[in-house]
C-alpha cells in the first residue's frame, strides 16, 4: 500500500493525461485544425472527438510519444468523417473534403498559432468578442468558464462566440499572418486583446467571483506566447514586462472591496522575481530603439517595482516617462497619471497646472485634483473636487475611500 501510494505521483508526472496535453498543446492543435478545415466550429468539434478517443484508447502508463501530433492527426480524420457525412449537403463542403484530403502534414504550429491570434483580434470583430474568442480558442477555456469571468450567462457568451465565428466564416476574414507592412496596423489590436484578458482578471470587481480560471495567469501566458512567436516585436516584450510588473504587486493590492493604494502597500508582499524579470525585459527591449507605449508603461511599472518605498521612488524619471507616453497617447488617463508623478517630482502647483483644463466624469481626475488642492492648502477647493468625484460612477470600494478622505478633510478644517 505504502509503496503504491508513493509511486503514484511519479507515474502521473511521467505520463501526461489528455487534460494536461490539451491544456499545454490545445491552442496549437486547434490552430492547425482551423487552417486545415477552414472552419472554427468543425475544428473544435473534431478536436473534441479526438479527445474523447484519446481518453478511451490511451494507455495511462504509455501515452503516444507525441501526444499533440496524435491529437492533430486523429482530429483531422474525425473532421474528414464529419465532412463526408455532410458532403451531400453542399458543393462547398465537397470542396472542403478535397482540400482536407490533400492537406500537407501539420508543421510545428508556429505560423498556425500566429494565424489564430491575428484572426481572433481582427479589427472587423468587436473588441469584447476578440477577448472571448481568444480565451476560447487560444487558451482553450470552456464557454461557461469565459461566461463566469465576464459575469454573463453561458448562453449569452455562447451566442457572442458563435456570432464572431459566423462573421469570420461568412465575411471571409482571412486566416493568415498579416504581411510585414500591415503589422503596424494589426499588432496593436492583438496586444490590446491580451492586455484586456489580463485586466479582466486582475480587476477587483471580478475578485469575489469564485471562478476556476485566473484570467491574470491567462493574460501573462498569452503575452509569453506573443514574445515566443514574435521575438522581433519590441511591444510584445513591453506588454509581457508590463503585465509581470503589475502582477508582482497584486498580493499587496488588497482583496475584494478594499483596494490598497500604491503609497500604502506592504512592499514585502511584492513578488521580487517577477519585478526583476520585468525590469530585465525593459532594459533589454528599450535598447532596441523602437520604443512604443507598452514599453514606456512597463518602464514606469518597473521603476515602481524597484523603489524601496513610495517616497524613495524615482519620480523625476517616472514623470519624464509619462511625458513620453503622453506624446504617443495624449489620453485623459495618461495626463492624470502624469500629474501624479509631476506632483511628487516637482510639487502640486506644477501638477495642477498640467490638468487644470481637463473636465471629465472620470472620478480619478477629481481625486487627483483634490489631492493637489489639499497640498496647496486649499481645503475648500479640495472638498469641491471630492464632491465632484463622488458624483461620478465608481465601484463601492472607491466610494468608501473617497468618503473617508472627504471626512478627513472636514476634520482637518474644523480642528
Amino acid at each position, binding site marked *: 500500500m505504502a509503496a503504491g501510494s508513493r509511486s503514484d505521483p511519479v507515474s502521473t508526472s511521467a505520463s501526461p493525461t489528455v487534460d494536461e496535453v490539451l491544456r499545454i498543446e490545445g491552442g496549437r492543435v486547434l490552430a492547425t485544425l482551423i487552417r486545415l478545415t477552414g472552419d472554427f466550429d468543425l475544428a473544435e468539434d473534431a478536436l473534441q472527438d479526438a479527445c474523447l478517443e484519446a481518453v478511451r484508447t490511451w494507455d495511462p502508463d504509455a501515452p503516444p510519444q507525441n501526444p499533440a501530433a496524435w491529437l492533430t492527426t486523429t482530429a483531422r480524420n474525425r473532421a474528414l468523417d464529419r465532412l463526408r457525412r455532410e458532403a451531400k449537403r453542399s458543393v462547398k463542403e465537397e470542396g472542403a473534403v478535397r482540400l482536407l484530403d490533400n492537406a500537407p502534414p501539420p508543421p510545428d504550429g508556429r505560423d498556425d498559432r500566429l494565424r489564430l491570434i491575428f484572426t481572433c483580434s481582427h479589427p472587423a470583430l468587436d473588441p469584447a468578442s476578440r477577448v472571448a474568442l481568444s480565451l476560447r480558442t487560444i487558451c482553450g477555456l470552456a464557454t461557461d468558464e469565459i461566461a463566469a469571468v465576464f459575469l454573463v450567462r453561458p448562453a449569452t457568451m455562447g451566442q457572442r462566440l458563435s456570432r464572431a465565428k459566423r462573421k469570420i466564416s461568412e*465575411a471571409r476574414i482571412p486566416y493568415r499572418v498579416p504581411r510585414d507592412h500591415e503589422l503596424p496596423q494589426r499588432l496593436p489590436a492583438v496586444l490590446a486583446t491580451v492586455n484586456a484578458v489580463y485586466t479582466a482578471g486582475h480587476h477587483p470587481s471580478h475578485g469575489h467571483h469564485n471562478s476556476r480560471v485566473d484570467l491574470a495567469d491567462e493574460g501573462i501566458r498569452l503575452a509569453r506566447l506573443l514574445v515566443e512567436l514574435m521575438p522581433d516585436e519590441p511591444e510584445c516584450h513591453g506588454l509581457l514586462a508590463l503585465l509581470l510588473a503589475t502582477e508582482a504587486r497584486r498580493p499587496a493590492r488588497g482583496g475584494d472591496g478594499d483596494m490598497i493604494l500604491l503609497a500604502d502597500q506592504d512592499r514585502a508582499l511584492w513578488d521580487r522575481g517577477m519585478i526583476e524579470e520585468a525590469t530585465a525585459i525593459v532594459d533589454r527591449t528599450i535598447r532596441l530603439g523602437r520604443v512604443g507605449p507598452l514599453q514606456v508603461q512597463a518602464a514606469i511599472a518597473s521603476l515602481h517595482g524597484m523603489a524601496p518605498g513610495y517616497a524613495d521612488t524615482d519620480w523625476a524619471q517616472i514623470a519624464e516617462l509619462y511625458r513620453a507616453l503622453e506624446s504617443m497617447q495624449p489620453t485623459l488617463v495618461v495626463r492624470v497619471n502624469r500629474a501624479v508623478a509631476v506632483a511628487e517630482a516637482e510639487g502640486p502647483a506644477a501638477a495642477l497646472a498640467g490638468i487644470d483644463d481637463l473636465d471629465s466624469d472620470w472620478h480619478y481626475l477629481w481625486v487627483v485634483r483634490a489631492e493637489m488642492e489639499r497640498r496647496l492648502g486649499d481645503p475648500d477647493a479640495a472638498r469641491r473636487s471630492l464632491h465632484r468625484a463622488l458624483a461620478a460612477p465608481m465601484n463601492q470600494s472607491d466610494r468608501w475611500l473617497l468618503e473617508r478622505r472627504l471626512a478627513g478633510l472636514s476634520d482637518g478644517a474644523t480642528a
Partner: protein
Amino acid sequence: MPRYAALIYGAEPSEEPGAEQTAQVIEDYNEFSTKVAAAGVMAGGEALYGTDTATTVRVEGGKGGEMVATDGPFAETKEVLGGFYLLDCADLDEALSWAAQIPGAWHGGRIEVRPCVDFGESDS
C-alpha cells in the same frame, strides 16, 4: 436607358424562420428574378448576409489616411445611402482595403462592407 437601383429593406428575423416560410420567400424571389431577367431589365443583383457580418469603414485624416474598421452595420442617422460598388475580392481584408479608397470614407461618410451570399451556382 436610365438605370435604377432597387434596394431591399426589411427587418432581420430574431430567430431562424421555418423551412416552409423560407421556401416560400425563395420561390417568390426566383419568380421575380426570372421575370425581370426575361424582360431584359435586370442589370445585376445580390443577396446579402445579415448585418451580423457587416464591417463599417471610415478613413481618418483625408485621402490615404488611417483606416478605422468597426464591427457592425452603419448606424443610420441623417446620412442616406448614396450609392454602392460590387467588389470581387479574395477575402474581407482585400474588400476593406478597397472600401477605404472610396472617397465617401473620408468625406464625412462611412462605407458598410457586407458579404454577398454565394448560392454555389458559380462553383467549378
